[in-house]
């Protein structure tokens, strides 16, 4: 068993490359590969899987495969493989001034919507019903609206989910096993944004099934009997069954994986992480080993949503950045992207890039030929501009805290200087070029719970509501695959809501733990 339980594979699909690693039981990297990401995603994924399995003596020692993928994001961006959704809002007679999906791009709407209805239901901020749930109207709508999935969004459901849960029962009675997305499980306060995320989630059930089937077929074809997990946007994992219910949570897993991988490889839990790729650098912050999250609205494929994502500052600076396009504050620099390996001067090409600039500055020995002498002045100037851009971005994400280390990861991390203003030290751990795949492989299973409760009148009441929120988050982590014995609360916030007649508090709890059965 000890040998069988030893290895896990982490795969992360990025915009340019699909990276794969094999980790042993102690979390050491024993194999790593990079393969180009293919338009269908699955092709590049299989190529990376094959290559990394070929690099280890006995692939049968692999027991788990963790996947961070862009299938869901791409499906939304390309309006492809999306299911048709019956969109149900519980809130009439309120909310009718803005019907569901009013702000969606027309083509995405056409691809996703089977029908929409606003039925009587929902709750006021103080918990009273706006109207009793109109079950007859719901049954009529479901009967008239053939759909692949149902999305249900109730007004103030994050503070009380009973009506949404009741609608799920009604869907079961009427339509059998047609999947249902409930908004209180997906997003937070802000009706339109939460509704949008819930509908996207419902539209992605088919994509989730396709990806799972493709991955399982690929694993079976390679003789692997393994458990599979998907990376989610907060840097934790979810089981295949859980991902099948919440596919929208896979969106944004890439940056989260890279942050978690940086923590693992460097051994620091609190740090700034800069992931330098071919066209951009993503900066994020690790707090106690997890990505700091943003509650700002996130746009996906032209649709505004409000589910939590890692707080990432992306700047247009990468290994392929064309130096002549740097330095104009009003226009984003351009990049040669993956063609850097043919177009950069150090690879015999004719475009001076940031890769050339970094080599000229002695920061890396990349390429097949030396930097041409006549380009040196321009390259030196470009390094100065780039270093200022990095220092500026670091200052923004650090919120003025000057004592954090910076972990440099990604394929072009050599661009970064060894000293950055506002940073204690720059860490360059081994295997940092595949930090994202490492992050997928080492992640814990996680769950989160968000609710709104009346502000506690005393300590006992507060303790009781915190306890029940913690229990719910832990239960969700276990549902995602965590070992019940070792789940812990990794994040807890209590935010008082202003302007309300009765004080109320938004509770957000995140729980995570090692995968069940993990040594």
């Amino acid at each position, binding site marked *: 068993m000890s040998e069988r339980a030893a290895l896990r594979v982490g795969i992360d699909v990025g915009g340019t490359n699909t990276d794969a690693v094999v980790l042993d039981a102690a979390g050491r990297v024993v194999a790593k590969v990079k393969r180009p990401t293919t338009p269908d995603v699955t092709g590049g994924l299989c190529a990376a899987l094959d290559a990394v399995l070929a690099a280890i003596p006995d692939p049968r020692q692999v027991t788990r495969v963790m996947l961070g993928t862009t299938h869901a994001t791409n499906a939304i961006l390309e309006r492809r493989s999306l299911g048709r959704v019956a969109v149900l809002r519980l*809130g*009439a*007679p*309120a*909310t*009718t*001034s*803005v*019907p569901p999906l*009013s*702000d969606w791009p027309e083509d995405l709407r056409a691809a996703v919507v089977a029908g929409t209805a606003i039925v009587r239901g*929902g709750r*006021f*901020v*103080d918990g*009273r019903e*706006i*109207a009793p749930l109109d079950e007859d109207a719901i049954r009529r709508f479901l009967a008239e609206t053939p759909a692949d999935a149902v999305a249900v969004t109730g*007004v*103030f459901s994050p503070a009380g989910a009973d009506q949404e849960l009741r609608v799920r029962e009604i869907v079961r009675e009427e339509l059998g096993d047609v999947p249902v997305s409930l908004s209180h499980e997906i997003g937070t*306060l*802000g*009706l*339109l944004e939460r509704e949008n995320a819930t509908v996207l989630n419902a539209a992605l059930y088919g994509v989730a099934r396709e990806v799972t089937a493709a991955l399982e077929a690929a694993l079976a074809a390679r003789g692997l009997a393994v458990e599979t997990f998907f990376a989610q946007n907060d840097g934790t994992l979810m089981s295949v069954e859980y991902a099948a219910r919440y596919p929208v949570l896979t969106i944004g897993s890439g940056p989260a994986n890279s942050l978690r991988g940086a923590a693992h490889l460097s051994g620091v839990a609190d740090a700034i992480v800069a992931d330098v790729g071919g066209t951009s650098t993503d900066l994020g912050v690790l707090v106690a080993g997890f990505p700091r999250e943003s509650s*700002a609205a996130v746009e996906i494929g032209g649709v*505004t949503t409000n589910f939590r994502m890692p707080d990432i500052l992306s700047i247009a600076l990468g290994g392929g950045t064309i130096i002549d396009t740097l330095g104009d*504050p*009003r226009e984003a620099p351009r990049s040669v992207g993956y063609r850097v390996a043919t177009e950069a001067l150090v690879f015999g090409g004719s475009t001076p890039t940031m890769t050339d600039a970094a080599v000229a500055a002695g920061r890396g020995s990349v390429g097949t030929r030396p930097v041409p002498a006549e380009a040196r002045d321009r390259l030196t100037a470009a390094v100065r501009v780039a270093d200022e851009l990095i220092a500026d971005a670091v*200052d*923004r*994400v650090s*919120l*003025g805290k000057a004592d954090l280390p910076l972990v440099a990861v990604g394929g072009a991390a050599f661009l970064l200087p060894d000293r950055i203003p506002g940073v204690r030290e720059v860490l360059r751990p081994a295997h940092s070029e595949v930090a994202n795949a490492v992050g997928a492989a080492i992640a814990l299973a996680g769950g989160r719970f968000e609710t709104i409760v009346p502000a506690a009148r005393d300590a006992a009441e507060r303790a009781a509501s915190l306890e029940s929120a913690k229990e719910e988050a832990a239960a969700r982590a276990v549902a995602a695959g965590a070992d019940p014995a070792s789940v812990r609360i990794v994040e807890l916030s209590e935010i*008082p*809501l*202003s*302007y*309300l*007649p009765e004080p109320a508090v938004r509770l957000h709890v995140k729980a995570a733990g090692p995968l069940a059965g993990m040594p």
Partner: protein
Amino acid sequence: MMARITMDDVGALARGCAVLGTGGGGDVRTAAIAARRTISAYGEVPLVSLEELDPDALVLPLSGIGAPTVSHEMIAAAEEPVRIRDEVERVFGRPPAAVMSSEIGGANGVAPVAWAARLGLPLLDADAMGRAFPEVQMVSMNVAGIPPTPVVMADAVGNVVTIRPVDGVWSERIARAVCVAAGSSALMADYILTAGELARGVIRGTVRRAIGIGRATQGARDPLAALIAELGAARLITGKLTELERRTTGGFARGTVVIEGTGEDRGRRLTVEIQNENLVAIENDRVRAIVPDLITIVDTLTASAIQTENLRYGQRVTVIAWPCDPLWRTPEGLKIAGPRAFGYDLDHLPVETIAP
């Protein structure tokens, strides 16, 4: 030819209303979605001046009141303006002829397009603040000494309430109580007057002005310069947000923001006091701009206005300030919405005389 607010104007209007919101007035995004969708369902909205209306024509000033957290979740019912219109017709014996925004700054500057479209009425090119203010008595009609009565409110479930308050302060107090009972979000009409009566009590041209502000900055090579030129504003500082302190007291989100200068402003430091809106800008213990003059914090690159709740450490911002409507600088205007109405023991000094 009669001017119309088209689908195409909504984005510019929303952008301009955000600038005139001086950090408050609520998020314009949901209101813009409602405006576009209502125009597409009911048609474009004629934009009229007071002079284009019959002096006896009834004007319906409308505004959403309540907690932003609530209106972002429990979105308004489409029928709320219809119920108010019907009640006004019962009370006055005739229907209103035009809708007016009570507050051009923020969401209440954009939503009236949806309300007017729904009612099939023109929108008056005027409002009662010329900016955003936190309380319903801080309106131009109150400055002009006109009583608010009657006040008509409609909520999301269909309740309609008519109030006859004795003055603007009582109007605020009772309307707030009704709003709380209605779930902390409601639509309100007050100062329902004829076009002739309103002539001495509104701020004119503010809808066109908001659209103009939005248009000037959209797609401009240098949006910030375009915005400053369009407003005739003073640039108080360009720099980085380095300190942000928030406190919620008495239902208001108060706070202090510090911006440290960058580039040509390096070495300078501006403090902005906020209470829902940006109210006072101070540098070296000297006031550089103060309410009721307008102070807006914009993103330096895009010139988009930043709402006070969206201010974050590290943002690259420019603080601009420009004069309010002259009506707010009269003794009565300053009594209602001057520095002391917000608890600052400071005199109002015109921004054009004190800005750097």
